[in-house]
């Protein structure tokens, strides 16, 4: 018996050794890994990160626009399969905003995902020995600018609940900072990116940056965002300085600017907020006050077209479709000249340069088929006029709720059903 065991055990052990030697590690068959990018990335790998960043900015953009526009009583979103658009966001039926729901978790996560991508891009560009110092500055300037923009979008939602600014190490995230500290951090990120662009060469291709894709153009884009941040900070003089270095032009086209673009190409995305006119079931319609409050002759009425039959859900009704984005590949503005003109007007009202402000406001009015401003030349009257112009010029571009909040006017928004609420801010996602 012993012998037999010995006889068998020898070949058997040899076989075991043979088979145990063939261990396998297949690696990731489906995707590139972060580790490989941080290890001396090539220019084309860095360019992939740039395009991924630009592309990723579009993720969950529909939730952001719906959040801001629904609470700001610009639009309704009717969906038979998703009641929270007409419940939570409007405070219907006693419901409140909840930090575990998609309207905050999805856009919040999508923005921080892009922030992460920007941080990887900064780190990968810093580690790379295959690019010049000027190229490195180009990547870093771009990454910091986009990161600032993404942080601003989240801060717009959570407001006094704040944001995390330092999120480089996922296992040791920085603290939440207040609204004003958040704006300050975003502003300084933009400044640091501007410095990087001052000595940069851009060796990557961008999609929605037509006319602004070199270092000078990116600086103008950067300053346009900085002007918006300065406005939120009530730094009126700084806002004007920022505008001067941006693509602002009183006589330029309203639509000059930088956009999210969409396409049907492989791995690309379609405009997430495009819904054809006169749909049923899944619809996005203008709040009835949009048409009720608009001035006669204002061509911006075309941003909400009449439906053949009104759409209703849960006691809300509207007869106008949102028609800002008119095809599935229509671009969505990140920032455009019309907003910059309005920033110029607002800063000047606040600095009491009322005639400059009126000039700017009249450019907007004339541009939309209306006569010159004829109201009182006082700061309060002009602010009211300015907010009205911002409401119609930037309809469904994600502004009105934030604007009224800045001026403490959220209580002026219409309440459609008794018990409905106008929220000031979103709670932080529960995971935070």
């Amino acid at each position: 018996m012993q012998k037999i065991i010995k006889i068998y055990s020898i070949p058997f052990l040899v076989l075991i050794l043979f088979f145990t030697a063939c261990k396998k590690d297949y690696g990731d068959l489906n995707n590139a890994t972060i580790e490989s990018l941080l290890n001396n990335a090539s220019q084309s790998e860095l360019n992939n990160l740039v395009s991924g960043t630009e592309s990723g900015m579009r993720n969950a953009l529909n939730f952001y626009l719906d959040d801001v526009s629904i609470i700001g009583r610009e639009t309704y979103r009717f969906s038979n399969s998703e009641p929270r658009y007409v419940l939570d966001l409007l405070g219907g039926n006693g419901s409140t905003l909840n930090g575990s729901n998609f309207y905050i978790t999805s856009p919040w996560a999508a923005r921080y995902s892009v922030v992460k991508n920007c941080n990887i891009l900064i780190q990968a560009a810093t580690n790379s020995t295959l690019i010049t110092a000027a190229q490195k500055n180009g990547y870093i300037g771009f990454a910091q600018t986009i990161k600032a923009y993404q942080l601003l979008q989240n801060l717009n939602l959570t407001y006094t609940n704040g944001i995390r600014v330092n999120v480089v190490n996922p296992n040791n995230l920085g603290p939440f900072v207040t609204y004003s500290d958040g704006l300050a951090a975003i502003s300084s990120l933009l400044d640091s990116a501007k410095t990087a662009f001052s000595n940069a060469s851009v060796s990557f291709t961008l999609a929605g940056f037509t006319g602004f894709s070199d270092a000078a153009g990116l600086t103008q884009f950067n300053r346009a965002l900085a002007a918006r941040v300065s406005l939120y900070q009530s730094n009126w003089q700084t806002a004007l300085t920022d505008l001067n270095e941006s693509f602002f032009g009183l006589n330029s086209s309203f639509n000059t600017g930088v956009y999210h673009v969409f396409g049907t190409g492989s791995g690309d995305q379609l405009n997430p907020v495009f819904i054809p006119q006169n749909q049923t079931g899944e619809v996005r319609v203008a709040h009835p006050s949009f048409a009720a409050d608009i001035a006669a002759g204002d061509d911006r009425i075309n941003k909400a077209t009449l439906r053949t039959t009104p759409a209703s859900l849960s006691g809300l009704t509207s007869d106008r479709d949102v028609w800002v984005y008119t095809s599935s590949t229509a671009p969505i503005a990140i920032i455009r000249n019309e907003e910059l003109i309005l920033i110029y007007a607002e800063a000047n009202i606040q600095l009491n340069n009322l005639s400059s402000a009126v000039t700017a406001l009249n450019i907007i009015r004339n541009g939309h088929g209306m006569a010159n401003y004829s109201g009182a030349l006082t700061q309060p009257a002009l602010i009211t006029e300015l907010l009205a112009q911002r409401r119609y010029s930037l309809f469904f571009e994600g502004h009105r709720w934030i604007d009224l909040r800045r001026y403490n006017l959220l209580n002026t928004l219409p309440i459609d059903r008794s018990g409905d609420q106008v929220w000031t801010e979103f709670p932080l996602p529960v995971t935070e």
Partner: protein
Amino acid sequence: MRKKILLITGWLLITLIPVLVYGQGKTLTGVVFTGNNVPVQGATVAVINSSQTTASDVNGKFTLSIPENAVIVITAIGYKTQTIKISGNLDLHIKLQEDVSKLDEVVVTGLATSVKRKNLANAVAEISANELNGTAPAQTFDEALDGKISGANINANSGAPGGGVSIKLRGVTSIYGNTQPLYVVDGVYLDNSSTSSGLNAVTLAAGGGSPTSNQDNPSSRIADIRAEDIENIEILKGASAAAIYGSKAAGGVIIINTKRGKQGKTNITLSQDIGFLSPIKLLGVRQFNAQTASSLPGDSATLVQQFLNAQSSGQIYDYEKEIYDHTPLTRNTVLSINGGNDKTSFYFSVAQKDEGGLVQRTGYNNTSVRLNLDHKITDNIKIGISSNYINSSSDRGIFGNDNSGTSIGIALSSTPDFAQLHPDANGNYPNNPFAASNPLQTIALMENNESVNRFITGANLEIILQKSNKSNTKFIGRGGIDFYNLQTTALFPSVLQFEAVDKGQSIQGFTKNLNTNYILSLVNTFTPSDKLSLTTSTGFTQETGDYNNLLDVATQVISAQSNVDQAGALNATQLRTKYLNGGIFIQEEANIINAITLTGGLRFDRSSNNGDVSKYYLYPKAGVSWNLTDMGIVKEGLFESIKLRAAYGQANNVPAYGSKFTSLGVSNIAGNPGLLVNSVEGDAAIKPERQAEFETGVDFSLLKGRLGFELTYYNKNINDFLLLTTPPASSGFAQQWINAGNLTNHGVELGANARPVQSKNVVWNTSVNFWLNRSLVTKLVVPPVQLGSVGGVLLGTYQIEQGKSATQIVGLDGQGVGVLGNAEPQFQMNSYNEITFYHKLSLRFLLHWKEGGQNVDVTSLQNVFGGTSADYDNPSKIPHVPYGVYQLMQVGTSAQQTVETSTYLRLREVGLYYLFDKMPLSYIKSISVGVSLNNYLTITKYKGYDPEVSNFGTGFSQGVDIDPYPSSKEAALHVSFHF
């Protein structure tokens, strides 16, 4: 010389040993009967220490060549084994004693060893062919298991044709790892993955972005197997029994043995089933009047006019009935042949089934060919080969959750009875003004097909290397491949109402999967005396998997075309996974004075999916069984047998492929290729989950085996369970893989087998099982994680939380967020009965009772949201507020109405069969005729279509009910001809 031969065989393992043919002696004939003088068909008659075996025919007769002084053993399922020494009389009349408590049944305990049930240390469930498929056959194999496994919680993913079932043995074994058992068919590890057809690109059920999600209701690949080919199934429910299967055994192992050829006359059986399906339940629809019509969303004057127009022209429709209330035909044909001689035997079957679905243009068909061959190369070398080719195709429609108003149930939920959805004379469907899609149009024009070509083949080689009086050494090699091509086709032509943006979609998936596995082992049985027997087995195992899925999503499809290149835009995604698991095992079983059995085993495992691919993890197991009657401690009398048993074992669950990587996905813009960090953060040091299970029990049988009991308690700890946690999203990751904590399951399983009636003309066999399980999360290193439902706390969601049951459901409770329910039932019971009259007429039925356990039932509420629920206008607790409005008022403050108890009692199967065995024609031996009802009677208060539902796939989340394909019941007629 012998040593040399052994050495060579040892080296080459599969070298042929010179053929040794024993001289033939004389011929033995006999008849095998039951105690009631009924012939036993298929009893195995074997000569001890020889390869001579045969099987009794339909009349119980057998013929066998035997050597001098032979000892023969007669075994048959359900009867006690009998050993007879042949001396003189060569024409035997053998009476077998019924084995109601199945003590003599042989049960698999190792990868290469087995013991008799009376020596078993574990509770191993078994399903016989009759129980599985002989009462009221289910459409697919996985559905046929429902209600038949003590200790299991089984839910159908959807009522759609083609199966798809979630089976959880002994509670929650994993949260993000594999929760489903391993299926082993004739030694081949089967792939049981579910491949989405990319419906999420249309339904957006899990949000946009990915074309696939766990809510696409694909079928499970185990559904391909034909129940008709199965001889019996053994179920190892936890690690204490399954440890030796290693990496994939954490969810339990379902060992399937298919039918093999038997020596003797060739038997041919031709069976034909014909039946029809009908819905188990319809929810009903709201009856509108002008006033209630005006309260629907929209302009009230228009709505009233629409209603009045429809009413005056008689165009009020019950769309739920129109869509679901059909009685499609089902048919199934099986031809099987089995036979063989003393060297070679075979089983061959061809089967074809074609079943319609409740919804038009859905259905299932399956064609299978199987050939099982067994051959003795010499007396010492046996080889067995199983091969199975399967072609299956299921048209499953579009059902379940969606966020785009496209699935049939969701569209119906907001469509009132006065909506006009029917096509005009030219076949053009109007748009549904009440929803984003017209369900009649969707059904008529869309397609969602899964079609599979699958080849499963396995081989089993046994070589007796050495044989002496006291020792016997065998090499056992077993392995196989499971290969399939799966094609999914989801077509949505541009004329569909919801294709206004995408202008037609063609989503085509191509999947290729290859699994291989083998076990090479040496087994030595050493019997120093008749009081002691030692079985040592050792060997190694390897399993590989290679899955490659290519999914093309074409949009802007050219009219009437389906090829993905006939489109304006094309998006492709590819997913590959690959693994290699290796294991080494050694197991020792000792049988002392036939009454005490001790088992000990070790298994070392590693996997390419682990963080450290070269590290071996050790999984031990041990068991003891002590038969008090065989020991003589308890005298045989009232008790025929009493056995105490205890077993302990560990098994693991490897991390999902890719969970160790943090990767970047493709996100392109305007033709520029882009990389965007994925939302899932990997853990480079990820470890397998480890499960440790202890079970103990007592088995006893009374009254000469007419009454048997099996009582089991188990306690199962899962350590380092894998969790896809939700880290702060500001990290850039929405999800993160970690080994997050520990959880435990404990429960009891009580089983009884009895023969309450045993008279000359009536025999009633019954079995009753009772089981329950409780789980507890004992450690969680992260804050509570919500997962696995729709709508979060608003409608009810699972929450993994320390100190709480793993399957608790939390939601808004009026005061805040509280525990509203638990998916785990209070208990379950089943009872299988077979009553035979005059040995000819047999009535079989299976009852299944599930008590307690909650589902998240969104289906009913969805109809309330849409204003179409049947009881919308009923009075509610609040005066003058209709019930539907009252229900809507609850949303946002309480989720109690969606977390709904799913207690049910179901007459799962009932069948009545009659055997005609006196045939006027000599070439037909017998004809059996039967009628059966499947799922015909359900007693439940549950409001949805079927309390037994799980629309979120086979993972952790079960019992989510959101507008599924309604479940069906079947009535069928069966005829079998035996030639």
